[in-house]
């Protein structure tokens, strides 16, 4: 039993040059084959028109301070109050941070829930909670256990236009891995853009051709694939072949066709509009999100910025608040101008808020007992404030709201029936909202 493992003497076959054989043999017989089904017909046929609504998320990874942004406490002592002053907004009675002047101007479109809470104060489990609605991973077992709301939306609604990826993250999914599909299947994982849309050289890896490969060659490959990929699909009753064919075609179409590439191409946008969004990652990501949604993507999550401001919160916020503010406001106005605001839910949240009391390092720590999320568009009433925190921040004073309540609100607005269940790996039906109930005050 106590065998000491030695390296195996016989190694597996390493790569070597092949024997060269120049004779062909009449063996095997070619696959008879049906014609490759006309490219994306199948896909187009089941493109669903169930709901025309989509979702754009600003994910404040790390945890944004509620007290320096949406839920100001001007009357609290300075160590609670922070460094910013509140300013009035387009909605009488609602104030926000002076670093949110753009949103203040359009507050009649935006609503806040100031009483969101959950029971964890660590990044990873909290991110899971806010992304999926459920507590799940612990430090000893940090794998995602429930699908993200993005994947649920992708699964329930699919892309609005078949060729587009249903669920996109910009530039990538957040680092904890909780924006994925888990048991819903890899198909519903987000498509990661993989680049900074504000970069001069922005191109999407795996959408942009690898160096040395030209479009003509991709076209040639497409033709050749069509000639050879003739294995009879009916021998595979699990539809893996059919599925692969569909996705190969879709991938080729994304690479060679115009529709998808154009959606990812920001250079077509008017410079003035690009400026309005702001020439930074926040702004250009938001503009990209709008383009993708317009082209038929269902949900775009913008993971831009790291908000974990334990030390010296002021410089941190100075860096992040203005671009976030500009991006959100420009997006809302742009959607509104294009008549799309009622079709797109906009959601801004992170895994938690930050401590009402500043710490000894001029920062704020993790705080999940009461924090604010912002919702707008997609039929959500603007200019409302739901719930309230305690006098100087801290706990929930009015209307405790859970992550599942927020997620249920989003699903409800997107037209996903709240009774929907999906089976997990054990075959157990899992509710998409559990005990969550839409925040009626916003509807």
């Amino acid at each position: 039993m106590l065998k000491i493992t030695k390296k195996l003497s016989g190694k597996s076959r390493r790569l070597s040059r092949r024997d060269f054989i120049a004779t062909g043999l009449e063996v095997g017989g070619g696959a008879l084959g049906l014609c490759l089904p006309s490219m994306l017909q199948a896909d187009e046929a089941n493109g669903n028109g169930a709901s025309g609504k989509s979702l754009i998320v600003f994910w404040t990874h790390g945890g944004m301070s509620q007290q320096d942004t949406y839920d100001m406490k001007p009357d609290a002592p300075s160590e609670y109050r922070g460094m910013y002053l509140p300013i009035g907004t387009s909605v009488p009675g609602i104030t926000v941070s002076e670093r949110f002047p753009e949103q203040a101007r359009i507050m009649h479109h935006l609503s806040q829930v100031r009483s969101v809470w959950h029971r964890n104060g660590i990044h990873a489990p909290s991110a899971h909670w806010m992304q999926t609605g459920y507590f799940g991973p612990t430090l000893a077992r940090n794998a995602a256990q429930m699908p993200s709301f993005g994947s649920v939306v992708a699964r329930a609604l699919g892309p609005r236009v078949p060729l587009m990826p249903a669920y996109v993250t910009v530039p990538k999914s957040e680092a904890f891995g909780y924006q994925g599909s888990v048991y819903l299947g890899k198909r519903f994982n987000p498509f990661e853009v993989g680049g900074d849309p504000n970069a001069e050289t922005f191109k999407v890896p795996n959408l942009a051709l690898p160096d040395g490969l030209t479009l003509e060659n991709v076209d040639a490959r497409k033709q050749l694939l069509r000639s050879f990929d003739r294995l009879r699909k009916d021998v595979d009753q699990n539809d893996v072949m059919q599925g692969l064919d569909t996705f190969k075609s879709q991938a080729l179409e994304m690479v060679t066709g115009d529709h998808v590439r154009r959606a990812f191409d920001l250079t077509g946008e008017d410079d003035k509009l690009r400026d309005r969004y702001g020439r930074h990652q926040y702004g250009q990501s938001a503009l990209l999100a709008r383009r993708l949604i317009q082209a038929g993507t269902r949900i775009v999550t913008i993971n831009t910025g790291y908000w974990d401001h334990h030390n010296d919160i002021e410089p941190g916020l100075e860096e992040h608040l203005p671009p976030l503010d500009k991006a959100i406001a420009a997006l809302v106005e742009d959607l509104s101008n294009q008549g799309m605001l009622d079709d797109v839910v906009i959601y801004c949240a992170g895994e938690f808020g930050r401590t009402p009391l500043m710490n000894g390092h001029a920062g704020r720590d993790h705080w999940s007992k009461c924090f604010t999320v912002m919702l707008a568009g997609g039929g959500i009433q603007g200019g409302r404030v739901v719930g309230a925190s305690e006098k100087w921040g801290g706990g929930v004073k009015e209307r405790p709201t859970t992550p599942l309540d927020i997620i249920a609100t989003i699903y409800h607005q997107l037209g996903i029936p709240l009774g929907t269940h999906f089976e997990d790996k054990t075959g157990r039906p899992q509710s998409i909202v559990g005990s969550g109930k839409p925040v009626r005050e916003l509807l």
Partner: protein
Amino acid sequence: MCNLLLNIRMSFLLATALVLSINVCLCNSLIAEPRVSFTNDIMPILSKSSCDSGGCHGKANGQNGFRLSLFGGDPLDSYRSIVLQAKGRRVFPAAAEKSLLLRKATGATAHGGGRRMSETSESYQTLKLWIEQGLARPSDQDAVLERIQWSPRQVVLAPDAQQKISVRAFYSDGSSRDVTSMALFSMSVDGLAQVTTDGLLRVVSEGGLGSVTIKYGEQTGSMQLLVPYKQSAEQLRELQGILSSLKTGNSNNGVNEALVNQWQRLQIEPAKVCDDPTFIRRASIDICGTLPTASEVLAFVSDSDVNKRERLVDRLLEQPEYASHFAIKWADILQNRGRGYSTSKQRTGTTLFYNWIRDSLLDNKPYDQFVSEILTATGSQEINPPTVWYRSVRTMPNYVESVAQAFLGVRIQCAQCHHHPTAKWSQADYFGLAANFARVGRKGGFADAEVPTGETIYLLDHGEIRHPKTQQVLPPKPLGDPPFELDAFADPRVALAGWMTGSDNEYFADTLVNRLWAHFLGRGIIHPVDDRRDTNPPSNPELLQALSDSFVKNKYDLKQLIRLICGSYAYNLGTQINPSNQKDQQTFSRFYPRRMSAEVLLDAVSLTLEVPTAFPGGPGEFPLGTRAIELPDENVAIAFLDVFGRPARFKACECERIDTPTLAQGLELVNSNQIQSKLSSQTGFTHRLAVNNRSPQENCELIFLTLYGRAGTAAELEVAVAHVSGSDAADESDKIERYRNLIWALLASNEFMFVQ
């Protein structure tokens, strides 16, 4: 408003008073009526009407404030909800028909679940009587449902035929009764037959195989249904001829006989035997995870020995690739996981464990010994690598679920919180199995933010597990059998391993042979491979038995089992469909094609293009030329592998490895650097072809033989040659690009990616 409240309060008081008085006074006057038992009469009604299902009142939060015990697992719990909660307003003994319970059930009061029963139904009358009789509560005196019996056990039905199922319940007091109308029926497969709520089975398909799941109380069972595919008399005669010729003179330990018997029962004509190029590609991939080389294909095809397929399998089983390839499978099942915050520290352990697995397979260590060494492992990973299993498997649910799923083929998860809805497992079974691991101790090791690594595993002096509801200490117990009798010095894990590997264990050998059968044939006889239960019966019990008997008789010899499987008719068939087998997905009447696994596919690309994949790792960790099937854990960052379904190794479930197609796979094939850089290499296959002096025809023939393991057809070669030759005006320097295009197209085709 006040009046209303007052009224409610009054009626509540009244109801409470009545409950008491009825209990005390009315019993005698109703003695003529049979006493309605909550557990034995009411609970089945709640289940039959789906009231306590997971989508309705059975879910953890109940439905609109009314919660019942899920699937009737806990009668007292449901009783409390109905009788005591909501201020007693759900039942009204003074006027039973006014009870909210009944009014909701019949839809007389608005009910989200709609109308579940009519006023004239037996269910309604029983519920009403129970309320009138005074709401008898579940008691220890109630007869206990011990078993159910149903008939028929197996049925062969023609298309459009019907069959009535009857179910009888037997109780601890010796009584029995017909419970057909209260039993739950469901079909295991869609589209074969329909079963009505009162147990009438009606075939709706042209043929096939399935089973009806029967459930009453916590008892479950299943009935196999066979619907022979329709054939004309002439076709049948022909089929008989084919099948009887298959039956004569085969000596495949009953395996072939079991296959043929099944085809006979269902009147299925199996596909023709596959040709040699197909077989060598299939066997090389399935055994060694490696494509055959062009010369291997040629040599095999020209070999005239009638036993060449057996010889091929023997040869492949002696290749070190066999051990590496299957080590990946076991490293998945045994959760040899590398991911965490501190990979470098984990890699030592995962490598030791992977190498131990691979050595065990290379030495053909008997499977019973292999599993025992893992289960009973103590010491450090350097001395005893299988202790690394205890790194991923470290909590009470991990122990139970990993052991049950990996080695016994049972998914017992549900029984952690409630009686398993479709199997016999109770919480006592779950926690009894857990008790075998209550004394697993750990010390030392390096604890990073995730899971400690390099711990020493030892046996604690004490450790116990309690039943979560009764709080009773549970002795270590094997699954489904009485507890072990152990002295204080005995390691319960040794007893568990002994029980598991005993030749009469009903799960152990079955699970492994089914797992390997699924590996080679694309589907388990029990499917999914680790979901064995009465309600998910094997598609061919005789076949499972034959494989299992042989495996036990051969002392758990894995290679011998693989020889048996690879020598079976099923493994030698082509993929072709014919009218009688086109719908078949369960009798192995043709080979079901499947995509190569992620690691095998990446290796196939690397080997074919003669450009190794560079795996990121520490210095000297994965020298260039390392194959994907040699990677010890899943935490080697190669997007290709993740995109094509490499599992995260979080569960002891092969279901974690998936072949679901995704858009990312399409993009990886079409547009990734992984493939493009290999095509563009200055040393690889593509480059060599482009610069040699052979004719395009010769080069294209080689390409087909190398990638598909067969000769290209005339039509294929014509297209290929035309492309690589280019037009007259074409630039010579584009020639390599044209070879790249051709080879890419073949790599991206299903024929390359599939085992068939």
